[in-house]
């Protein structure tokens, strides 16, 4: 299990040594359960950092913003940015490196291993708690999460509230890192592409129906563009196409 104190200590050391400009990690939000991205600039602030099963978001996207900001500065700070990554996030980072969008020297990777667990699905948890509002969620020994609600603590089996993608994840340990927290465990997954195979085995018409249903949710808010780390072009070809269709 990742020890939060280790994470804070590591963050504090690199900040004090001046190895990094700042650290992008997870912070407690006003809502309580789901964290918000935190930008830690001073060693004193590291106490804000958290690591819980609710750290769902991929922070890699902030490197895209960082690169843009840096390109506008006259005398940019050349030090790398510290970034907390989970196994899955590290793969996004690898693609950004492969596409040469960022260079390896620009990022100091603090890898956190999910080990046998993963991150939660907010909806699944809400269903499980039956209307009680979760205020805090923590890792527990042996495949359990401890959820704190207003009525006290509840133990929840990880397999019941883990996000779908975590149930068939093989990248539970970051594939690339400067420092790794937690243990390197190979998770045993029989078939990592179960949900994909399910869709691929459907007949044409069913597949079309499935995607139509998925895309019917789209209200063209472009949040997908702001959240996906692979979406980093300055000029977007989609803008033009969308304009043509909306005409």
């Amino acid at each position, binding site marked *: 299990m990742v020890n939060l104190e280790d994470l804070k200590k590591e963050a504090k050391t690199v900040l004090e040594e001046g190895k990094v400009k700042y650290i992008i990690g997870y912070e407690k939000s006003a809502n309580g359960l789901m964290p918000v991205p935190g930008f830690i600039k001073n060693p004193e602030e590291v106490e804000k950092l958290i690591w819980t099963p609710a750290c769902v978001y991929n922070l890699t996207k902030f490197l895209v913003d960082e690169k843009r900001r840096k390109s506008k500065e006259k005398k940019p700070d050349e030090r790398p940015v510290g970034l907390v990554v989970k196994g899955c996030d590290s793969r996004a980072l690898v693609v950004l490196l492969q596409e040469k969008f960022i260079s390896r020297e620009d990022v100091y990777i603090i890898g956190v291993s999910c080990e046998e667990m993963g991150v939660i699905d907010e909806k699944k948890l809400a269903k499980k708690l039956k209307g009680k509002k979760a205020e805090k969620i923590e890792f527990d020994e042996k495949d359990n999460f401890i959820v704190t609600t207003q009525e006290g603590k509840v133990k929840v089996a990880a397999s019941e509230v883990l996000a779908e993608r975590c149930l068939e994840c093989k990248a539970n340990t970051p594939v690339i890192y400067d420092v790794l927290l937690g243990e390197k465990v190979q998770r045993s997954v029989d078939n990592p592409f179960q949900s994909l195979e399910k869709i691929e085995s459907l007949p*044409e018409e069913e*597949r079309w129906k499935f995607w139509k249903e998925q895309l019917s949710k789209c209200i063209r808010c472009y949040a997908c563009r702001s959240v996906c780390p692979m979406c980093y072009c300055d000029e977007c070809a989609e803008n033009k196409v969308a304009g043509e*269709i909306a005409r």
Partner: protein
Amino acid sequence: MAEEFEPKIVAFLCKWCSSAGSDLAGVSRMEYPPNVVPIQVMCSGSVSPLYVLSAFNKGADGVLVSGCHPGDCHYIKGNFYARRRIALVKRLLEFIGLEPQRFQMSWVSAAEGTKYTQIIKDFVQELKPLGPQTKLRRDL
């Protein structure tokens, strides 16, 4: 009597081979179905997936991308890029549930007028039983 369905095909033909091939078919007065709308591009490698999707969006029943034979590209390796990219688009379209016959790729050299007519004939024959393409078409 109901009219037979005539599919509309958009063909992206590379300037150096396929377009010249279709031209040869024309000047040699070979007969082939009039269902195809040729669009000349400089290289099959310049065909963006967006062109293909846009053609379907505007009501094409089938899309054909045709370039030089592998190894014969005027720009040395443009058609290799095309081959990779088009294969990906084809698989994507199949994955979302479009009939795989609706999108095809072929290699036609400048001397292969007959081959071009044959490809169009076969394509039209394949598209006729499928009926109009409504999935990716925008509502008019």
